């Protein structure tokens, strides 16, 4: 970490946290909130293992992995956006648009599977570029710019499909969402690849460092010469591209481009990041935390079906988990900061 925080790192007195350099202290707060979400994940996991005999089977666990792929992958892009103190409300609509465009490319234009998947990802990236430009060059608040994109993407989607699902996709395309390598579903492998790259980007690259810097203190970031506009646009482009990838996986899982896919998905995605310790005020968030958040939501959904719990109850439980995660996060941060003062 070459952050300027290092200079004023060693504050005198206080507890353990206060004696650590600021960079390390930040890491510690993040790890702590991950431990909170991770703890909840473990509790739910253990509970389900006892409550449902079918839960702890490799088939079911891989299933959960595949089921959470779309949310988890998009949530990692969202984490990057949230770290910069931004938000992307368009991911659900963009995922659906990408899925439908990729599906149409295959079924109507006969484009082969891999380029068609690429086209879906590019569609998402293009939406991301537009979001980024609207936010940085036109000076729109991220909330507004991406809200507009959500509407534009849904509208484009309905115009291009007349709101009817696209069927007749080639069998090879099913591999992306339904295939397996050994016992491991391909969507789970995609999660792993995106997670490893995402973790490296966040912790070891200029893009990652700049993102945290922009989110923590945009003014300081600007004064220290970070090209904020460029990096924010890159961040939204990555988020859009991952939404596009998620949309292609969703299309592959049901072998069709569904125009109604992803309504409300953005909320699941944001919830995953927030449960995993990302702060909507910016500067906080990790890939591991977000993965934990996504899996926690997926486990609650999976367990609810295994135990045949009413869908409405599931929504309440997930909402309460979001509250608890944020309250816990706040509480821990305050304690650490109190220790530092």
């Amino acid at each position, binding site marked *: 970490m070459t952050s300027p925080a290092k200079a004023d790192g060693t504050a005198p007195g206080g507890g353990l946290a206060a004696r650590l350099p600021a960079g390390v202290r930040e890491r510690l707060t993040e790890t702590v909130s991950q431990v909170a979400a991770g703890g909840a994940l473990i509790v739910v996991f253990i509970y389900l293992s006892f409550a449902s005999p079918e839960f702890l089977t490799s088939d079911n666990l891989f*299933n959960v992995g595949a089921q959470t792929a779309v949310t988890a992958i998009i949530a990692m892009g969202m984490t990057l956006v949230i770290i910069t103190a931004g938000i992307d409300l368009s991911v659900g609509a963009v995922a659906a648009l990408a899925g439908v465009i990729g599906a149409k490319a295959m079924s109507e234009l006969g484009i082969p599977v891999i380029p068609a998947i690429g086209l879906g990802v590019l569609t998402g990236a293009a939406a991301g570029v537009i979001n980024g430009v609207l936010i940085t060059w036109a000076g729109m608040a991220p909330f507004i710019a991406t809200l507009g994109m959500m509407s534009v993407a849904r509208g484009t989607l*309905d115009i291009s499909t007349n709101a*009817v699902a696209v*069927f*007749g996709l080639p069998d090879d395309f099913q591999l992306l969402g339904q295939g397996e390598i050994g016992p491991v579903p391909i969507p789970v492998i995609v999660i792993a690849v995106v997670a490893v790259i995402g973790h490296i980007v966040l912790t070891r690259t200029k893009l990652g460092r700049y993102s945290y810097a922009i989110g923590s203190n945009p003014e300081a970031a600007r004064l220290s010469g970070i090209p904020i506009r460029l990096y924010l646009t890159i961040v939204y482009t990555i988020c859009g591209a991952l939404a596009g990838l998620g949309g292609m996986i969703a299309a592959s899982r049901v072998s*069709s481009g*569904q125009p109604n896919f992803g*309504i409300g998905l953005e909320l699941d995605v944001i919830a995953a990041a927030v449960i995993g310790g990302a702060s909507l005020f910016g500067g906080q968030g990790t890939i591991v935390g977000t993965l934990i958040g996504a899996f926690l939501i997926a486990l609650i*959904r999976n367990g609810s*079906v295994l135990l045949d719990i009413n869908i409405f109850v599931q929504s309440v439980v997930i909402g309460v988990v979001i509250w608890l995660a944020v309250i816990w996060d706040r509480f821990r941060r305050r304690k650490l900061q109190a220790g530092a003062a």
Partner: protein
Amino acid sequence: MKQRALAIGIALVALGAVIAGCGAETHKSGGSSGGTKQGAIRIAVVPKAVGFSFWEDAHKGATCAASKQKDVKVQWDGVSAETDVSGQVDLLQNFLTSGVDGLVYAATDAKTLFNVTKQAISKKTPVVNIDSGTNPQPKEVPVYATDNVQAATKVPDLIAKQLGPQGGTVAFIPFQAGTVTNDQRTQGFKQGLKKHPELKLVATQSSQSDVNTGLRVTQDILTAHPDLNAIFAANEPGVIGAAQAVKQAGKAGKITIVGWDAASDEVKGVSDGEITALVVQNPFRMGYDAVTAMVKRIRKGTEPASEDTGVTIVTKSNMNEPAVQALLRPSCQTPPTLGSG
């Protein structure tokens, strides 16, 4: 005495004619039609949501009916999700304000939409419901719909026939609690189950009218009940999701799937032997008959009567009959006639 009664009678008739005449005058100037209206007319046709081939078939029926009349224009518009009740209310109110001559719509929520019907009646704009009516249903508003309760009682019979006398376990995938069609199909299905003690309902999980959710809950149900014998999914996204999950679990053809509606992938599922039977409604006829009745109501003042547009059970053995094909691929050249009563 007789002469006096006759005189009063004539006077009353004359008075009635004058009142009616006045009424017709005012309405002509107001643009809407309480009495009858000649010349060009504009009818708004609003499905529960655009998308899903079901509503596209209703659209075809409505446009077909309009094309067979002189100077009738159908305006087709809808919200993008069947759950968007307030969006539909706004849309219908906008149509009313714009002064359409008639309103044909499917209610996303029976109680809420009753208010819109009431407003239309007070503006003297005639209303016809397709697929889903309101609660209460005003007597001047006919419903062109499937008798969902009646049709759903046939489903357990189909499953029982398929599983034989030893019966088995059944999962039920409804789509959206609170909508009339969902609740009626649930009611009918459960009524029908009472006749078959050999069928055991082991899981009920909603698809929320979303293919990916349908896929996910079915996967989880299969995990919880590996020995499941049959599934009834009560609308198109649920059926496609369920069939996909069963196929991915390698149990295609081994689990009886009874579905509802006839999207192209559902029909393909029947021909591939993945779906045992489909309860197919006649949305084309709903749209066609509703618009035809609406035109009659506007031009001639004829009060239309409600109509059960019927269902047809489509299986692999009857799906290639011309009459069934006309139902599955309705067009204005070959309007489907099946499924009356």
